[in-house]
């Protein structure tokens, strides 16, 4: 139970958006393997504070893998080596004694580095503002059961809707593309009758916004799907493209 490992950490430190950053090197001894990666960083920060060094800033909230707040890149992989897992749910049992871990923030021009490993993903909000909703005012909904949706369709829509907006897709994409994020929302809504109504305007507007925010173009590396904590499929990207073609042809 109480097995522990020693690690070498190479952590990106950067004061704020304007300054340039660099790597700092820390040794972590006797890290219990049952704790999570963020708890390991908690220990690091406690040690640093005691030594009179400012702790490493990193973001986290729910620590259950659902809020999408946490996230950084470990040895070149967003959210680390474990598939379908955010860093808060990544446990130290997946690492070996003596490992060197290079920890970098999610890098993409639209994600400004706030400090150290903390980035601002507000540009995702802008993409949603461009049409990631159903235009309905409160109180206008018809009886919930008056809209029939087949179980399989509902499940598929859910698969797309499961996105937590953590930004790992962008971080892992060689082009820093937000295609997976954007398409997941487009795809969620177009698979439901409620969302279908606005499909054409939505897809055009959201895709344009995604470009405008400075994200790259998807060139089908599929790395996003592999690092996505919710396993969101690149099928959504295909759906978005089909939808865009339809919106042009019609």
């Amino acid at each position, binding site marked *: 139970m109480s097995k522990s490992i020693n690690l070498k950490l190479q952590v990106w430190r950067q004061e704020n958006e304007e300054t340039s950053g660099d790597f700092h090197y820390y040794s972590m001894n006797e890290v219990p393997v049952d704790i999570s990666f963020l*708890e390991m960083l908690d220990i690091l920060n406690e040690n640093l504070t005691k030594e009179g060094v400012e702790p490493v800033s990193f973001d986290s909230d729910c620590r259950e893998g659902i809020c999408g707040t946490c996230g950084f890149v470990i040895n070149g992989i967003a959210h680390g080596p474990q598939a379908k897992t955010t860093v808060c749910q990544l446990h130290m049992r997946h690492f070996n004694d003596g490992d060197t871990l290079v920890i970098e923030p999610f890098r993409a021009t639209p994600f400004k580095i706030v400090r150290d490993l903390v980035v601002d993903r507000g540009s995702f*909000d802008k993409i*949603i503002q461009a049409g990631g909703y159903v235009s309905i005012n409160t109180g206008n909904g018809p009886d919930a059961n008056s809209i*029939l949706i*087949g179980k399989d369709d509902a499940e598929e829509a*859910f698969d797309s809707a499961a996105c937590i907006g953590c930004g790992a897709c962008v971080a892992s994409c060689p082009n820093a593309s937000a295609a997976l994020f954007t398409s997941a929302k487009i795809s969620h809504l177009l698979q439901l009758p409620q969302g279908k109504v606005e499909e054409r305007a939505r897809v055009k507007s959201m895709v344009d916004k995604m470009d405008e925010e400075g994200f790259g173009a998807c060139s089908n590396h599929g790395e996003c799907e592999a690092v996505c904590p919710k396993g969101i499929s690149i099928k959504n990207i295909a759906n978005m493209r089909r939808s865009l073609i339809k919106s042009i042809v019609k």
Partner: protein
Amino acid sequence: MSILKAALPEKDIVTHVTKLDGKTPGGDLHDKWSKYKSEMKLVNPANKRKYNILVVGTGLAGGSASATLAELGYNVKTFCIQDTPRRAHSIAAQGGINAAKNYQNDGDSVQRLFMDTIKGGDYRAREANVYRLAEVSTNIIDQCVAQGVPFARDYGGLLTNRSFGGAQVSRTFYARGQTGQQLLLGAYSSMMRQVAKKQIELYTNKEMLDLIIIDGKARGIVVRDLKTGKIETHTGEAVVLCSGGYGNVFFLSTNGKNSNATAAWRCHKKGAFMANPCFTQIHPTCIPASGEYQSKLTLMSESLRNDGRVWVPKSEDDKRPSDEIPDSDRDYFLERMYPAYGNLVPRDVGSRAIKRVCDEGRGLGATGRAVYLDFASAIDRLGKKNISDKYGNLFDMYETITGESPYNMPMRIYPAIHYTMGGLWVDYDCMSNIPGLFVLGEANFSDHGANRLGASALMQGLADGYFVIPYTIGNYLANNSMDAVSDTAEEFKESVDEVKKKNDSLLKINGSSTVLELHRELGAVMWDLVGMARTKESLADALEKIPQIKDKFWNDLNLMGGGDNLNKSLENAARLADFLELGELMAMDAYDREESCGAHFREEYQTSEGEPLRNDEKFAYVSAWEYVPNSTSILHKEDLDYEFVEMTQRNYK
């Protein structure tokens, strides 16, 4: 004997003579809300755009309120501490949302949901509020489906339901184990639509640090930009506080790391009453803590108790692995103790039963603080596929954390702090005793009494935001004429100085204890002495220990960094400073309430079967505490007059 302990005995708690008025409209219970709506004053559409409304928090309550108020035409400014509003902690709610739709034709109705909620809250909630909640519950589902929330459906395309604790009908709507996420994203998307229309101004990475009251009305807030440390001010005609609960006072809880009481507590210090702070809910099914570095606890949805069976070995000496213990040597204690509800008893009842068997020494593992939640019989009965469809993501989550698969061996669970029923006191309009300060969702105290039923938090957050505040805020604005205020007013200047001074003083302590250490220390005291079971002695003890930690905090805090950029330690320290004060009030409130009710369990007051024993004669009131600087808080009481429901002893047997 310390000064504090001396100040404790009952007679020293100052009780205000005038009773608090919840301003419940008259008339029959069933008609109160429709009567209110038809008689309230309206703000005409052209005037709505003249009003600025400040919404603090973007969870279910804040998100839905922002969106709805903006749709009505008000100018809304919304604030959240995260980089995007979609991260509010409502997102972590797993199991579902209740609504009296009666789609299952199993006898549900608004009346029954109302009764279940009142009874579940152990008769410590305001009747009229709870009835309204049950009444609008059905609209919530319609609204969410229309937004595109992918609720679970059956093969015919209709919505499906599951059962939750404290109810004998299936009325819980769900989206796999991520209902909170999907509902929040629904509210968030409606909100984003209004941001695009420039009807909402969105302020992210801002933390509310003070409430500004001018001429007796809430007229503005002071926020800190968490990225730059800049202190900013915002003015408005009303403030809608939706900042969530204060479970993190216990350090280990299922709340997110950033969930905090600061916004609410600063309002309290400006005069808003804090109601029933001792009503904190313990959720029975969480993953047990594994060691000293544990940073938070993870909940396993209550819905698991639909198919999971809770048990421990009959004998405390039985240390065999679970699969070697035959049925005859297992004690399915919830089924044994509560045959009618079985594994689906309300949360407080379940949690205490688990604590009891662990106290008897029958708990599992090295810590002895865990029981089994077993799916073997459900997998036999329904098949692995079926179980995986229902709970797949929860099982995966459990395996990720513990390294054990619930398909092969039973889960281990233990209760943890999960939700706080207490909060800022509000009247029927969801307005605090400070005019113009509205409080919604978990941040207020209103609807759950002494214990919240599963799947009711999502219901309340959305009910308040979508269907209550749009009416009541209009009524307030129409009834109150207000002069324009500017943030150059003296009140703002004073507050900004005060906030800056407080942050500076935190940064200057230069001691040796870290925020985390001190928070853990507070958490341990709260859990041991103000936790699942409380006694007069334990509470007195807490009231002595918390000020000691507070002293240590203000004299020995080790805080690195400065105040003019992102500094998580500073944020956490400022929040802990408030938790320390709140923790003390919680202990005080629990000390004052000499009865057991719902989640508040005073060991002195229990039935012969170990169930909570209420004292309706003396304690059928809401405790609303008024902050007094440098002195003991004053207790105001709002009597709970049950006009329509008869108070009885809860019985889940």
